[in-house]
């Protein structure tokens, strides 16, 4: 039986460097599919996708809100061909009710230990409309290595350089941040994977560079330290969301290969300045993530924040506009205040104002967002700054003997497509 698993494409943000990373959700889900099922994976962002009936069952895995309209289009097309279509993934969970009309089945929750029943039901012609495992989390020990062999690896190279692989060491999050839906998706309980299972998975990844996609590793100091200690011998280099900035944690993280971390910069305080400095003191780069549009922010605050970013020596900065994703407090607040004016999910890409900000017009917020990108990267472009960060990881790899040169056979291609020089 052939299961075609599709990852819908989405429109990338204008003016930003596009990197197509090997998706994580589909490979984690695929690991839970019974082994006798043949999985054909199509990532529409890099791969040609011909909608045809050369499969038995279709799965659509959606991570982003900006993917869902395309996901629905794909589902509708396959259903017209008479194929059964099941949807899963975190944005399916955020938009489940709207997805139902485009689906034979919707899977809500985490897949481990649950997909045998789904495929069994499919074979018997008894596929359920909804598989609701929203709060029925699998034992975290049961989360094994993702099934990355379904990826067409050569499509995730740019000029011969392999993109980072995505990897997770925990699920759930004890924090409940204003714009974030993770509490709804994965629960408020932090669920760290056992270290030996993490190491087992890391050993299967044929890539020295990783993106640890956990929402925050800074949730359990002892586990965090144990994780980094166990990672040291593997000599991987990785970026991640926040880690604790205690000296003993940073020291272990640096030894374990921390390359750079994403750090939210929400004000111009010494706290942020010192935190960035502490990361740098341990040789860990910092990419600032800056959110514009909270009700506290005036135009003046945004401009001051941009000036501050230039003072604190961030290696990179990524700007986003507050986006009210369903199942967040942000959504609840803005819906209550009738401030959301755009409900086209294609625009929920964190680069467009879809709501009325408190202290300015949406158009002005959009201008300030663009001003932030232009100002931060005025003297040194995003590509130049990325290259500096890239050079830093190469130096470390050369020092510990893990450096792999680029693949010359893919040097003329970018994500599977031939590079055309004008």
């Amino acid at each position, binding site marked *: 039986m052939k299961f075609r698993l599709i990852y819908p494409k989405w429109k990338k943000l204008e003016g930003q460097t596009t990197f197509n990373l090997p998706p994580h959700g589909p490979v984690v889900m695929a690991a839970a599919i019974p082994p006798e099922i043949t999985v054909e994976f199509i990532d529409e962002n890099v791969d040609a996708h011909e909608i045809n009936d050369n499969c038995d069952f279709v799965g659509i895995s959606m991570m982003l809100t900006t993917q869902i309209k395309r996901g629905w289009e794909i589902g509708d097309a396959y259903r017209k061909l008479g194929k059964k279509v099941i949807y899963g993934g975190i944005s399916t969970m955020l938009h489940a009710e709207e997805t139902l009309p485009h689906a034979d089945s919707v899977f809500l929750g985490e897949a481990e230990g649950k997909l045998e029943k789904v495929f069994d039901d499919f074979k018997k012609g008894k596929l359920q409309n909804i598989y609701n495992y929203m709060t029925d989390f699998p034992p975290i020990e049961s989360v094994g290595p993702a099934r990355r062999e379904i990826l067409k690896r050569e499509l995730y190279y740019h000029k011969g350089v392999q993109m980072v692989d995505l990897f997770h060491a925990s699920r759930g999050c004890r924090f409940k941040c204003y714009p974030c839906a993770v509490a709804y998706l994965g629960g408020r309980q932090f669920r760290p994977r056992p270290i030996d299972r993490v190491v087992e998975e890391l050993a299967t990844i044929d890539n020295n560079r990783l993106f640890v996609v956990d929402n925050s590793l800074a949730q359990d100091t002892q586990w965090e330290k144990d994780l980094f200690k166990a990672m040291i011998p593997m000599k991987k280099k990785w970026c991640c969301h926040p880690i604790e900035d205690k000296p003993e944690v940073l020291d272990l993280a640096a030894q374990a290969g921390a390359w750079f971390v994403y750090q939210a910069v929400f004000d111009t305080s010494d706290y942020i300045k010192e935190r960035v400095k502490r990361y740098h003191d341990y040789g860990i780069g910092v990419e600032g993530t800056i959110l514009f549009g*909270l009700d506290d922010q005036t135009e003046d605050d945004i401009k001051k924040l941009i000036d501050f970013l230039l003072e604190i020596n961030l290696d990179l900065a990524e700007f986003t506009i507050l986006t009210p994703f369903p199942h967040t407090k942000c959504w609840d*607040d803005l819906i209550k205040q009738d401030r959301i004016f755009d409900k086209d999910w294609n625009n929920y890409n964190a680069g467009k104002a879809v709501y009325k900000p408190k202290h300015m017009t949406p158009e002005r917020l959009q201008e300030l967002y663009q001003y932030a990108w232009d100002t931060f990267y005025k003297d040194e472009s995003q590509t130049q700054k990325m290259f500096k960060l890239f050079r830093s990881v190469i130096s470390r790899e050369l020092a510990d003997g893990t450096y792999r040169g680029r693949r010359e056979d893919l040097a003329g291609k970018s994500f599977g497509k031939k590079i055309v020089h004008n």
Partner: protein
Amino acid sequence: MVSDKIPSPYIDEVYEFQGLWGIRSLCGLKAIQRGAKCIIIVTELYDTNPGTTVTNWSAQLAGELMQKYNTNPENLIFIEHTPDRKSKLEVYDETFDRVSYTWKDGKFTDPKWQRLSKQEVDKLIT
């Protein structure tokens, strides 16, 4: 569901409900009878609510509580409350919103929220 009138002088408890997709959910519940009016204030419990927010389940929750306290759409005053989170972010300040709905086919739909001050809420319940 057993229907009860609101006992005197008022109800003040943590209320458990089944939210979206049947998820166990919790909110604070204050209910008070003022003449024919049944005033219900549901509080979002950020840290202890494992499930759906009161805003996300507003119409269903209002319908459930209306039935529980044996009142009718005309006499229900339904208020959503978010407590002060002692945050420096304004979005975590205390808020009260009175919610009005369309009553159709025996169900509330189409919630609309109107911000109330604490004083306005006090006036309603005293």
